[in-house]
């Protein structure tokens, strides 16, 4: 389970991660089982930053959710971080509720123009007893 401290660290490291910073790549907090990256918003993120598995998609989350996330979300555990567009988070968040999960951290990031229309960084974690570990 991701700790409060790790969640705060996650919030701090994301902007640099999106910018492709090598230091940030190494500083992805513990407790995340995987990181979802929306290529429209964070093309620079490398595979396995800090040893965390990266799952990439390009706007439409269908295949990623159907093939990878849904089977994982049916089992207990699995904390997922993400840097995605608002539209993709809307879909993933709603789907995650069906499997006893909630967005436990959410942070808007400035877009390329500096306006708040950029990606969102988030963490989805299990909260319902049927999927909580331990």
């Amino acid at each position, binding site marked *: 389970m991701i700790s409060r401290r790790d969640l705060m660290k996650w919030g701090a490291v994301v902007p640099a991660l999106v910018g492709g910073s090598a230091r940030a790549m190494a500083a992805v907090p513990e407790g995340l089982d995987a990181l979802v990256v929306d290529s429209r918003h964070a093309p620079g993120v490398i595979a396995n930053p800090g040893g965390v598995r990266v799952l990439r998609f390009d*706007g439409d989350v*269908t295949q990623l959710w159907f093939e990878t996330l849904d089977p994982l979300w049916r089992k207990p555990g699995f904390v997922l971080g993400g840097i995605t567009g608002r*539209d993709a*988070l809307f879909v993933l968040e709603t789907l995650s509720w*069906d499997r006893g999960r909630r967005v436990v951290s959410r942070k808007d990031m400035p877009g390329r123009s500096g306006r708040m229309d950029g990606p969102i960084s988030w963490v989805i974690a299990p909260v319902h007893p*049927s999927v909580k570990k331990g």
Partner: protein
Amino acid sequence: MRTPPGVSAVTFADGIAEMKSAVGEEWVFTSDPDVDTYRDFYSVLWGEEDERIASAAVAPKTVEEVQAVVRAANARGIPLYPVSTGRNLGYGGSAPVYSGSVVLDLKRMDRIIEVNEGNASCLVEPGVSYFDMYRHLQETGSKLWIDVPDPGWGSMVGNALDSGGGYTAAPYRGHFEAQCGIEAVMADGELFRTGMGALPGSETWQQYKMGIGPCLDGLFRQSSLGVVTKMGFWLFPQPEAYMSCSVELQRFEDIEPLVDLFNELEYGNIFNGMPSIGSPVLASGNPLIFAEIPEPEEMNRRVRETGLAAWRGSMVFYGPEKVIRAQWEYVQERFAHFEGVKFKENQFVKLPLRPEDMEKIQKNRFGIPSMEIFSVGSRGFGDFNPSDGHIWFSAIIPRSGKGFVKANRVMRQACAEHDVPLFMFSPAVTCWTRSFVLFAAVPVYKDKEKNRRLRESVLKVIQICAEHGWGEYRCPPAFQDAVMDAYSFNNNMLRRVNEKIKDALDPNGILSAGRYGVWPKHLRDGRHA
């Protein structure tokens, strides 16, 4: 804990305790963060006192658990609002019509009870999503297709019960029409089966809809009379090939013969896939917004100047290659006499699909569920962000050229006059074979004042449509009373009969109160003018 109106806190707590003992403590949700997941994120009443909000939610796993919950509610007058997957965005989400109801969330009832390959049918529980069924058909190597709406996260049962529609062949794309056999828990907790399901030992529940006597499946469409716990559907045997084609015509005046001929060809089984009537010259700006159809001279002038066709009739053929090529040839023969006609074979696909086909096809035409629709905004189609939301305005209009032109003009003008913003306005759509439906997607806001104005405007458009004889086939809860009011033949006999049935089958008025304008007796007074 929120409490339903008219139910004391003690009675409610007692009811919730009984529900917990029926389904297990962890499947009854009363905390605000949990119950908030049942808000309608596309509500036109967002954040207002009148927003339709649940008091709690209960998620049973079996029919017996549903019966126990319904009995607990009925004994105490606790209002319940059953949903299947509760993804009815644009038409109410998973929020109840009557605030304070307990959402009866049937997502956990997700058993695919049977897929009958020979009869091309299935029997499912309400929590079976389109994705669940697709996965099952893929994993079992089935040769059957489902018909899917745009977002694949909904359920076969919930979508059909709200009368949803999809994109494949005629017998399947009207989802309530494709159902065959319903099981429902009634308000007193009794179990009811329609059609051949009423005959013990029958093997034809998913083969013959009607059984004996009055056909009662319709009691559960857009209704407040039962909790549907099983539903059968007819499935589409995978065809050998798919071909989409179009006919382009060059003059405004061609619209009437175009629609008439399309009707003849579809009803005569010359093509079996979903047709649509669009206009290249009018959709040359934003492809999601069908412009107001101008006067004939103006439209013909634009056609001449742009070289774009006035009308495009698109049709789809499913079947053996030999047969559908012959059918297309016949269609071309029938249209050959139109001046300047152009024929296009847009796509031919041999089935089953190969992995490389997946990138090229429109998935919903092949019964493949997807969530792609929620990313259209990022592909530059209009100002669409799914987290802001929209409502659907969906009017049934005549399936004729004249009817289409008139409805397009009246609705576009009404939307303009009453400042109804649009991010999608459809061409003539044919989810149901014998009529057209015109869809408008109207953005909603998280801003009370904007939503208040929007509601007033939409009510005016409902009224204008009704004056022309066009009624919505489906709508969000905030407009359900107004839409039902518009079906006013013989002093609103439709609603009055529905109310009599409601009183007889649900005398305590606990199920889905207010759905589509049918309120139980104790909540009815003063509601209708």
